[in-house]
């Protein structure tokens, strides 16, 4: 159903553009620049924006079909900075909006950019169910372990001991583990990356985009203003370690035994329990039908059962029953 030529929802058929549409010239990432980002200088979110431009450029997603959705938070200013269709929605509900958009417009690949507060705290419930239902979209959570827009309060991913305006003596609550949360929720693509390794982050975004269903990426994105140095331990340039998950190649070699099988849910969960900075890459990926596909099947079955009758004939039949 995420096939551009397959308009599942009746009437989603394009209002014909007169004549054959002219193939537009390929665009460059610079063409996608829009409003000047309001992020602080040095913010990790800049990297994500640039990678999104690169992704669109590389894939040449038709310009008018690029659709970027966000909620509330620093990260969620994202759509304003992309010269394409976009929605800046209310706090925590971007995934819910994207669900309706994705299911009613299967010709789009909806990208949602969110933050740790938006996705894991106020929006936790929607995350859980969009993952479980496998609604086709890509969600990138730019995780900075702090509330930035409201100026340094504890976030659901702030580690215990983190000093913030709401925890002046240090955070006391255990943080959310995004990988565990998403694997347990039933997400079919769960990956982790960091803005400090753009190449890896772009790779994750491409793989997420190629995944049919709900794809989730946690991207560590440093808040230089309110939590500087939070991710140094994952940054080789700061003396840390960026350990990439080696995935099974199924080449029969002995070393392949030790490699990670992303379809192994238990192994993925084990990786998620590693202490910070942990590992980066695809923790879990399962091939399952997306909700979009399942709904399309319901449509196909119902349409066939109704003899592919048009709306007038179908409704007339129903009303005849009600006489």
């Amino acid at each position, binding site marked *: 159903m995420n096939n551009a030529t397959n308009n*599942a*929802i*009746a*009437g*989603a*058929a*394009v*209002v014909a*553009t007169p004549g054959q549409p002219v193939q537009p010239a390929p665009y460059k990432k610079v*063409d996608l620049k829009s*409003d000047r980002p309001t992020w602080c200088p040095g913010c990790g979110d800049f990297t994500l924006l640039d990678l999104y431009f690169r992704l669109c450029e590389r894939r040449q997603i038709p*310009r*008018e*079909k*690029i*659709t970027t*959705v966000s909620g509330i938070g620093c990260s969620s200013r994202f*759509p*304003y900075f992309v*010269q*394409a*269709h*976009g*929605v*800046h*929605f*209310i706090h925590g*509900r971007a995934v*819910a*909006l*994207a*669900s*309706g*958009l*994705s*299911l*009613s*417009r299967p*010709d*789009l690949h909806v990208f949602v950019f969110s933050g740790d507060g938006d996705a894991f705290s106020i929006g936790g*419930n*929607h995350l859980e*169910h969009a993952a479980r239902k496998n609604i086709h979209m890509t969600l990138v959570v730019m995780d900075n372990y702090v509330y930035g827009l409201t100026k340094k309060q504890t976030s659901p991913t702030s580690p215990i001991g983190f000093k913030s305006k709401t925890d002046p003596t240090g955070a006391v609550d255990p943080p959310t583990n995004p990988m565990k949360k998403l694997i347990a929720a039933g997400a079919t693509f769960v990956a982790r990356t960091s803005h400090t390794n753009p190449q890896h982050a772009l790779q994750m975004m491409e793989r997420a985009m190629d995944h049919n269903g709900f794809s989730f990426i946690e991207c560590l994105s440093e808040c230089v203003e309110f939590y500087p140095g939070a991710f140094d331990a994952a940054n080789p340039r700061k003396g840390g370690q960026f350990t990439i998950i080696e995935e099974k190649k199924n080449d029969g070699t002995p070393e392949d035994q030790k490699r990670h099988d992303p379809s192994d849910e238990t192994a993925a969960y084990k990786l998620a329990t590693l202490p910070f900075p942990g590992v980066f890459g695809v923790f879990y990926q399962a091939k399952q039908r997306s909700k979009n596909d399942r*709904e399309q099947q*319901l*449509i196909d*079955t*119902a*349409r066939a*059962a109704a003899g592919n*009758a048009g*709306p*007038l004939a*179908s*409704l*007339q039949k*129903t*009303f005849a029953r*009600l*006489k």
Partner: protein
Amino acid sequence: MSNTSNPNSGTAVVANAVPIKDAVIRIAGNSQDGIQTVGELLARYSGRSAQEVMSYMTIPATISGGPSIYQVRIGSDEVLSVGDEVDVLVAFYQHSYEQHISVLRNGGVLIYDPDQVKPNPDDKRFTCVGVPMTSLTIEAIGGKGRDKGKNMFLLGLIARMFDLNMPKLEAMLKDWGAKRDASTMEATFNAFRAGYGFDVGRMGQNFRFIPNERRTGRPLVVMAGNQAMAYGLIAAGVRFGAAYPITPSSQIMEILRAELPKYGGMFLQAEDEIAAVCAAIGAGYGGRVAVTSTSGPGLSLKTEAIGWAVMAEIPLVVIDVQRGGPSTGLPTKMEQSDLNIAIFGGHGDCPRIVIAPRDVEDAFYSSIEAVDLARHYSSPVIILSDQAIGFRVEAFEEPDLKAIVREMPIDFTPRGADFKPYEDTPEGIPHHAPPGAPIANNNYPILTGLEHNEAGHPGEDPKFHTVMTAKRRRKLQKLAEKLPTPEVFGPAEGDTLLVSWGSSYGPAREAAEKSIAAGEPLSALCIRYLNPLPPGLDKIFDRFKRILVVENNDSGLYGFGQLAAILRSRYCNPRIGGINKADGLSFKVREILEAVHSQAR
């Protein structure tokens, strides 16, 4: 039952049947007795016989079982309410008799099951007919000692009593049983015919409806308000919706979930009320009006997202099948107390369209109108239905589907270089470009809850807020100018005007009819467009000494119900008062007439 001197009936079978044009029948039993089936079959039969009909049922608050009633009013003239009192009461059990005998009118017929009920022998107000329904049903279906099928016995009994057309009724019963097994249907028909064989007329009276002269043309359809609303949405081209189960609106989502795939659409059962409205907004952003249906508590939860749709100017239809509130309130009872949240709910200056259907037929047309308004004005539209309209069954003329049914294509037309989604025009209507629509100057709009400029991008300059707030308000002011002025029923001027909205329409109108017949005329008017209000109400109000707003909600801290308070503030008219109640039940005509007379002037 009002007798009439016109005895010309259709197919008279039962001898000496008295011609009537109106009857209210209440069947009281337990919820597992199948009385709802009898009530619905009677309602459908009435519709097929071009009779007017309105039903009323109670839903037990318990999960399963418990006392339950189904009341059906059948008329050869317009049926506006379900009836203050009943002409025929059927009591299956002692508790049915005790709880409902008070609504039987003097001279009415009590049909009771002597196997279960001992009526008060000293009460001589009624014609009491004992029909051993339990034992006769067991006898009729083969003496297995089970009385399942008692409802069908009763249907036969009523068919005889009201001289209903047997071949027509049997054909309907066959349709009803199409998916049931042969032995069940054999038992059904045995019980039904045994009931028909029992002549209540020997002890009381048989009746026959005179033909309905108001209906001559189109056939009638019979359905409940929730059904009418769901089919209205489909007719209007809605192909996406989302909701979370909640009484008494769930039926709407159940129908749409089952029906929409046939039309190439889908309905999302969301994880919560908030997700449901957000998904509908997402589909609306995608280019076509989508719907979310709910009831009071759900509307509270959806409020923030509705505010976003007002700000970003996205089309959206929200159905609120009102129930008693606040909080969990009375989940299975009717109330009209969500008007304030529908009109004002949410933070900020947040204008949106609110309409209320007045009966089941209007529920169908209101949902179509809501979709059109949402699309044209790119605005949320809230439809205020209520439990009474949602659940009751009425017969109405089959809509002209050929003229109504429409598709709602997405407008992917490339937008020009001068495209401004929020252009500050006199009409104030935005131009929404959904994803997939190319924008010539590459100045793509971002739909946002932040205050924005004409291009849809946020700015710090507070002057945007002044301009855009005015634009969003002006949009609805322009709509108000185009709305039709409601018609006054009864004298165009006089002492008292009864103003109703939503389901208080029927009883208020019937109260006016009765008062006119009694020579003390009251006038009545129903407001369908609640926000913005239609033009011309002030001039109408000026012609009456007092205006009483009939609404099922509390009279409030300052003595006025929710619509009355709005009308008073809108028109600065101190002669606007109200008739209010909050007992979970629709107004009785009598209650309105008593309030009119008792209220000090």
